[in-house]
């Protein structure tokens, strides 16, 4: 979405997140925030604390709590933040993190108003930070760290980069890959909303440049034209093999299938159109998820 020099991208890669990345959780005292802060820490992520305005100076389950993102960053050296805050507070939380100079921002929350998302994304672009979400499972670098809600026990380290618009479907794919003995370099869940900070193209670019990634799995779904645009990008810029999957073949025209992004309008956004677009640029598209490991081998 925004261009960076090649050097910069390389440094941030290994894709986005390593075991050395220091992470804070905005909303760490909340039900989901605390639960997943613990899960992230268990997995090996350096969760160095979190924020909850008004509770600065306290501790919760061994996590330091700060009033502001700025204080948290200054005291812990955190460079990444993950937002577990209800939708009505996401805009302010994201603005605070961006203004405090965070380098990587992951927004897990769903149902953030579109105008708020657009406003946050534009600010993130202006400050040239990496932002993932909203309404996404986050990032996991198997064997190193995770930011977000992807279960840690379904991944294994390896050479396949996974990028997906869906949450649970991503887990399904990761588990099938792991069971088949196919490890992953990084998995980025970009989120199911039509408006989001990072789309397929940006992640494909990262995987193409990442020496740890040899092959790519891309999970799309009906609605919008992100998969079609990704196909065009793959044709022009991606040399690594890509295996695709598109969910929503049975969807009815005009019906929203859960994800706000997954609505078929006119002739744009059907599963058939997306599958054809991907196949036309040499992407092998799996009919069933269980075929993905095999297609990666061939």
């Amino acid at each position: 979405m925004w261009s960076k020099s090649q050097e910069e991208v390389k440094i941030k890669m290994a894709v986005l997140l390593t075991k050395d990345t220091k992470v804070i959780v905005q909303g760490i005292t909340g039900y989901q925030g605390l639960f997943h802060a613990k899960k992230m820490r268990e997995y090996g992520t350096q969760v160095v604390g979190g924020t909850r305005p008004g509770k600065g100076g306290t501790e919760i389950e061994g996590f330091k709590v700060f009033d502001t993102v700025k204080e948290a960053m200054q005291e812990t050296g955190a460079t990444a933040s993950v937002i577990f805050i209800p939708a009505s507070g996401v805009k302010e939380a994201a603005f605070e993190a961006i203004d405090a100079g965070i380098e990587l921002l992951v927004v897990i929350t769903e149902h953030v108003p579109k105008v708020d998302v657009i406003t946050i994304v534009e600010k993130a672009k202006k400050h040239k930070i990496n932002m993932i979400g909203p309404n996404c499972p986050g990032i996991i670098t198997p064997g190193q760290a995770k930011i977000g809600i992807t279960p840690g026990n379904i991944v294994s380290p390896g050479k396949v980069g996974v990028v997906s618009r869906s949450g649970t479907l991503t887990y399904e794919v990761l588990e099938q890959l792991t069971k088949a003995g196919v490890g992953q370099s990084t998995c980025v869940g970009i989120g199911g909303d039509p408006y989001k900070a990072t789309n397929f193209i940006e992640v494909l670019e990262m995987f193409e440049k990442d020496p740890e990634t040899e092959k790519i799995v891309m999970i799309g779904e009906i609605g919008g034209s992100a998969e079609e645009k990704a196909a065009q990008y793959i044709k022009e810029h991606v040399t690594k093999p890509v295996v695709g999957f598109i969910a929503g073949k049975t969807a009815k025209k005009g019906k929203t299938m859960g994800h706000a992004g997954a609505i078929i309008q006119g002739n744009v956004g059907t599963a058939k159109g997306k599958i054809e677009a991907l196949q036309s640029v040499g992407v092998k598209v799996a009919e069933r998820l269980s075929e993905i490991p095999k297609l990666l081998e061939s």
Partner: protein
Amino acid sequence: MIKIGLILEFEGKNLFRKYNIPLVNSMLVTNEQEAIEASQKLGLPVAVKAQVLSGGRGKRGLIKIAKTPEEVVEKAKEILNMESDGRPVTHLLIEEAETIKQELFVSMLFDPETYDVKVLFSPKGGIDIETLAKEEPEAIETFIIPFGDRSYPYYFMYKLKERGIQSKQVVPLARIISTLVKMLYDEDLQLAEINPLVINDKGEVIALDSRVVTDDDALFKHPERKNYLSETLRHTKAEKEAEEAGLSFVDLDGDIGMLSCGAGMGMATADLIEYFGGEPRNFLDVGGGASPEKVSEALRIMMEEGGLKAILINAFGGITRLDDVAKGIIDAKEKYNINIPLVIRLTGTNQEEGVRILKEHGLKAYLDMEESIEDVVKESRGGQN
């Protein structure tokens, strides 16, 4: 969660009024008597307009002009006896009838790829814009307004003059378009459209219709929308109950009830059901982090809808805890007398605990998605392959 999205004409016009977009006088009524009274206050002739969500009202006889008091009664009665979107017409907008010189079209939305506001304008409005786009694409102009640039009327004045709009109308038209752009941001709208936007015999520019789609995720900023009439008109009973419980529910045609935790997973599950030769009856997504109560309520709604031969619960727990899912299933099974095959697949967060709870109650859980789907398709055919 309440879903409103597209709102009714009079609700959209109430929003327009707040921003001084020029309208003609109108009154909302629910019977012939009120219609007569409204027409007396407004003065004849009037337009009698059904307040329904589907478009193409003119073609469907849901908008009629009445020139006499007798006609007002007759047309109001006629329209109130009609149906739209599977339910009777209950509300009419009685509106001063205009003498129309020209019909224009303006529509705008956020482009999901670029976040710019995309404005579509045509001096040929009134008719179905999709037909116009197909038959005469050059009659529609697109203006792109970059993010954050609320745009000044002068910008549209330049554009409209190029399209041959007369000096007298350029100023109000440009103001209307730039106001709509502002409304998209300030009112959290996904779409704002006026068709027709008319020039009357006095040369005035007036919004004769409104088509506005609101962003449901922004309801916390606009709580008054929870009371909109459009909200009560929208859904089937099951869909409405599902919404209230915070579930996403879509009616389909088959006989396999399908509950998923996550939309993408739901879609892939539906695809696989069809792949194995079955047909989903619905698409019911409890979303991430569902509580036992939510899962139980989802099953209740599904059972009440009926038409099921088997139910599949496909839960991959990320943010969702599978012990919560299992508790919800047991609760529903005990309360709602689920007497059809229940095929369950649990993998992910707190999986062991979830499987244990099910086992205690004599239910088996699959770990593999495809196996569970093959099984539910088989069950939906009475156990036959």
